[in-house]
């Protein structure tokens, strides 16, 4: 049995509003081929695959059957999660820890452009008392944003400041979808989405795929500094969105506590070098950073600091707000955290990054959360 699980390679497509040239299984092929090319691992040596996707976005029931062979699952053990790819990574790590597999390939994909996000997300809601009202996820996010702003004191200007900084950072990430040197005025004057949320404060519709290769400790030893250890994981699910206070993320606090304990982290704000947080909307970032104990006290002070690039590096890739698809966003965070602690993040590398966190949110108003802590083999 292995003594641990490492990430030995990652691959991402660039993220785009509409990838009209490729079908979704072809996007997955693109990242799997890139991953094998870069790691030198042969598909014949990978016997375990876990994929993440949403049937409603793919427009096909059990749509993982369309990517099974692309991920090398022909006559092998492929399983699918209908949640973020970061949860797929948790299952993949468990498979390796079981001693049954030396590698597990994790993929996530979505082409949001092929459907209409409101039409897809309306089906997340209760059919008896919510769908008749036409609720979709932009509306529930707007309701949550207004509640969080009211309770926390965070303002629309604060959200714009944070959004401005992430889009600026995204200019250094060649895979980012919506990057640029926008002004807070441009962000505040972009078209209204719902409630206090403007278009430039919310992830645009996005197409893309991401792949991560997990390996046992025995296999990982051959990868040197390109092997990064999973030192802690946590996953937790809260009550349905109408049955909890939307201004806090208690499930994330609990998921993080579990991951930090396993990783031996007592002071996350000091001990983590990078945090890649899944925040589709600007208000989610301070709310989640608070639950992750990345700051203490007034979220407005943290936003001002983070918008200046001070303190712990949060979303140096630009983050999900600049455009990542549903179910891919969290696995993208893991890939980015891996690139940081293995010193391969290129122009957006955080100097000396050794310990990083990746986070994913699932469900209406972040009902479920997943946290993974990574540690690189040496400083870079």
């Amino acid at each position, binding site marked *: 049995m292995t003594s641990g699980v490492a990430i030995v390679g990652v691959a991402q497509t660039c993220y785009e509003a509409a990838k*009209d040239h490729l079908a979704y299984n072809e996007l997955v092929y693109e990242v799997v081929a890139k991953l094998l090319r870069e790691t030198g691992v042969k598909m014949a040596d990978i016997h375990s695959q876990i994929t993440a996707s949403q049937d409603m976005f793919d*427009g096909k029931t059990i749509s993982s059957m369309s990517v099974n062979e692309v991920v090398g699952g022909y006559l092998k053990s492929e399983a699918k999660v209908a949640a973020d790819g970061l949860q797929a990574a948790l299952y993949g790590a468990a498979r390796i820890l079981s001693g049954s597999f030396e590698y597990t390939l994790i993929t996530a994909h979505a082409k949001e452009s092929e459907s209409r996000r409101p039409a897809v997300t309306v089906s997340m809601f*209760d*059919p*008896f*008392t*919510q769908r*008749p*009202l036409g*609720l979709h996820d932009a*509306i529930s996010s*707007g*309701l*949550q*944003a*207004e*509640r969080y702003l*009211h309770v926390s004191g965070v303002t629309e200007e604060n959200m714009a400041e944070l959004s401005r900084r992430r889009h600026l950072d995204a200019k250094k990430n060649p895979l980012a979808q919506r990057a640029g040197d926008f002004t807070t005025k441009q962000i505040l004057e972009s*078209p*209204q*989405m*719902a*409630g206090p949320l403007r278009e430039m404060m919310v992830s645009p519709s996005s197409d893309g795929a991401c792949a991560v290769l997990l390996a046992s400790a025995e296999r990982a030893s051959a990868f040197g500094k390109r092997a990064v250890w999973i030192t802690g994981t946590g996953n937790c699910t809260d*009550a349905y969105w*109408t*049955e909890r206070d*939307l201004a806090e993320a208690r499930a994330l606090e609990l998921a993080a506590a579990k991951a930090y304990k396993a990783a031996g982290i007592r002071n996350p704000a000091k001990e983590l070098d990078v945090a890649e947080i899944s925040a589709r909307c600007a208000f989610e970032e301070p709310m989640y950073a608070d639950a992750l104990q990345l700051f203490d006290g007034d979220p407005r002070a943290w936003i001002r600091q983070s918008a200046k690039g001070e303190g712990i590096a949060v979303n140096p890739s630009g983050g999900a707000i600049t455009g990542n698809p549903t179910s891919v966003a969290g696995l993208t965070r893991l890939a980015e955290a891996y690139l940081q602690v293995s010193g391969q993040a290129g122009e957006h590398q955080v100097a000396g990054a050794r310990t990083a966190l990746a986070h994913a949110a699932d469900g209406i108003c972040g009902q479920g959360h997943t946290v993974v802590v990574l540690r690189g083999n040496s400083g870079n």
Partner: protein
Amino acid sequence: MSANSNSVDPIVEQKIQIPYSYVAGPAVSRFLTGLKDCVFYASECDACGRKTVPPLSFCGRCWKPIREFVTVGPRGVVESFASMPGGETPGVVYALVRLRGADTCLPHLLDLVPGQKAQIGAEVEPVWNEEREGSVLDIRSFRLRQAG
């Protein structure tokens, strides 16, 4: 058959339409039936006392079945709201309403007359349709209660 690949449309338009007959179950049925009489039913867990609306048949926190139904509302408080872009006319406003006595929120529309502003904490009341059939749309919307 033409060898010209440019003549093929690479994007295929389709719609998936699937009929469903969702079974509401005893708890939600109680809620929907109550709306016909302008009454809001909630479930009350006899272990933790939590009142949930629309009602549940079980308390997930105590992991116990629920057999008690109580009435809540009809007045409530705005826990959050979100106005939607409306183009030339004012857009609709959604609200999360915590009905008086309930521990959870009911999402619905908030009807504002010109000059009124939505506010968290504002007191609201339902506006019922004349004809009611046991649907959440029997409530036309919630409206702000006038002060005093």
